[in-house]
């Protein structure tokens, strides 16, 4: 663990919306090949931080380095091109497309799909299409919804939608995966399956930054956890260290719980 290289270095990121301060100097680093948990009460700034890291929101100050390259001022597509993929807390699938087409669309960064061979009707274009279709099918199998490939994404159940978002994010072979509450609303069986999936992804060399409210899921899965509150980093440490930290207990249970 100690020997791992830092893949993502977040330093003093601030961002306010009008008078509301969402991030007030959040700082921590994510090591390569780990599942890094990001927890905190509602409104702690977790989703804003993910939005900054994926280029959707620009920070007021501070920096984020991905593989030593600054990403905090890049537009989203440039960040994605460096190898950062994400899912959304409020699920942003392509609802009228089939599940398979959602994943195929997600291959934008890796699949060439040039227009000219298609225009000329060359067989190479057809072979390429089949190859990427197979690969997309593989991603659906990986997240466990291959049997829903032809169904439109809008007709999936809530848990299946979350899985499809992960499959679409995986389609571009990212190095860093930002997951915003990937198991919200899932049953125990789904929880275990997604947990197993994330573990296997990390074993293959991927790095995952995971926002999740389900504490036992985070504690079991993550090797390192960062706690945010009021846009500040309270602590970054192992699950045991985090669980013992007095400010974490306070943030989650409320300061006055002893007197209640």
């Amino acid at each position, binding site marked *: 663990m100690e020997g791992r290289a830092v893949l993502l270095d977040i330093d003093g990121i601030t961002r306010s919306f009008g008078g509301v301060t969402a991030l007030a100097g959040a700082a921590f680093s994510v090591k390569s090949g780990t599942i890094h948990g990001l927890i905190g009460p509602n409104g702690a700034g977790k989703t804003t931080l993910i939005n900054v890291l*994926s*280029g*959707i929101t620009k920070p007021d100050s501070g920096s984020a380095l991905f593989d030593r390259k600054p990403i905090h001022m890049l*537009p*989203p*597509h440039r960040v*994605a*091109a460096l190898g950062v*993929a*994400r899912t*959304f807390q409020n699920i*942003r*699938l*392509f*609802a*009228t*497309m*089939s599940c*398979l*087409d959602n994943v*195929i*669309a*997600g291959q*934008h*960064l890796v*699949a*060439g*799909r*040039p*227009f000219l061979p*298609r*225009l000329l*009707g060359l067989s190479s274009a057809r072979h390429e*299409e*089949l190859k990427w*279709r197979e690969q997309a099918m593989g991603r659906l199998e990986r997240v466990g919804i*291959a*049997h*829903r*490939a*032809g*169904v*439109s994404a809008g007709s999936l159940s809530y848990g299946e939608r979350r899985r499809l978002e992960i499959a*679409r*994010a995986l*389609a*571009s072979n990212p190095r860093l995966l930002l997951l915003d509450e990937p198991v919200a609303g899932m049953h125990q069986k789904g929880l275990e399956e997604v947990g197993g999936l994330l573990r296997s992804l990390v074993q293959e060399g991927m790095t995952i930054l995971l926002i999740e409210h389900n504490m036992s899921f985070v504690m079991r899965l993550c090797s390192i956890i960062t706690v945010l509150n009021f846009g500040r980093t309270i602590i970054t440490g192992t699950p045991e260290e985090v669980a013992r930290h007095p400010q974490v207990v306070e943030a989650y249970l409320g300061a006055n719980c002893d007197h209640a």
Partner: protein
Amino acid sequence: MTPFVIKFIAIYGSLINFIGINALLALSLYVTFWAGQLSLGNAAFAGIGAYTAGVLTMSFGAPYVASISAGAVLAGIAALVIGLPVLRLRGVFLAMATLAFGEVVRIAAVNLQITGGAQGLVGIPNVTNGWIIYGALVAVGYFLARLRGSRIGWSFESIREDETAAAAMGINTTYYKTLAFVIGAVIAGLTGAIYAHLNFIITPGEFGFSAAVQLLIYNIVGGTRIWYGPILGAVLLTALPEVLRGVGVTAGPIRMFVNGVILLLVILYLPNGLVSLFRRFGASKGAKSEERAESAADGGASRAA
């Protein structure tokens, strides 16, 4: 040709030509719809193409192919100039900017000397025929059908579905939105240029706001989820007055009424347009894998049941 065919073409030849022109213009708007953008400037782009080609042919004696190519290119350049600043933004800005642009083009055509003013450009040689119109329609249709499934086509579709998600998976949304807008304008400019050589005369009013809205209606009635939807809409609504005349309803207010009723019915009951009557959307292209996916889906459903 049999006497019947000859007679049919003699009576309906110009209608058939207009159907082709309208189908091409509807396709030009479809491309911007494809990338989730609403343009109200495509009639104006057709106007730019028409006047460019007309002036080149009449004043400079340019050959037909050169004139219509120049018309298409100039419309594309105009779209690039408008699109680049506006398409960085999201939402209704393109509709507003193109609406204003359409008026600018119309007023310019009314006031410029070279365009013949309000009377229009008169005496353009009659070179275009049905073969050219339908050749262009087949070419544009094939182009768009092949674009679907390419990197560009997938990007357009992703942006239409969710621009934020599209950007997060690496799509340069400004680039692809501008590309869709420019391709649409080139098709519109080409069509305008072909039209100018069909009709002997072009006037500014033909390329105004009502023409832009007409293209919108073709798209909505036909459906914008697949390239042949707008063609269907254009064919039906262009032929409709003739069909109505055939059953004894003469043109006039009743025609607009029937148009309105059709539009309303489609919006209420077929939000994906008439094409949704005979095509299931959302599924993958390529019949084989579609079948496979569907049978797999059925299997999953029966397992679940």
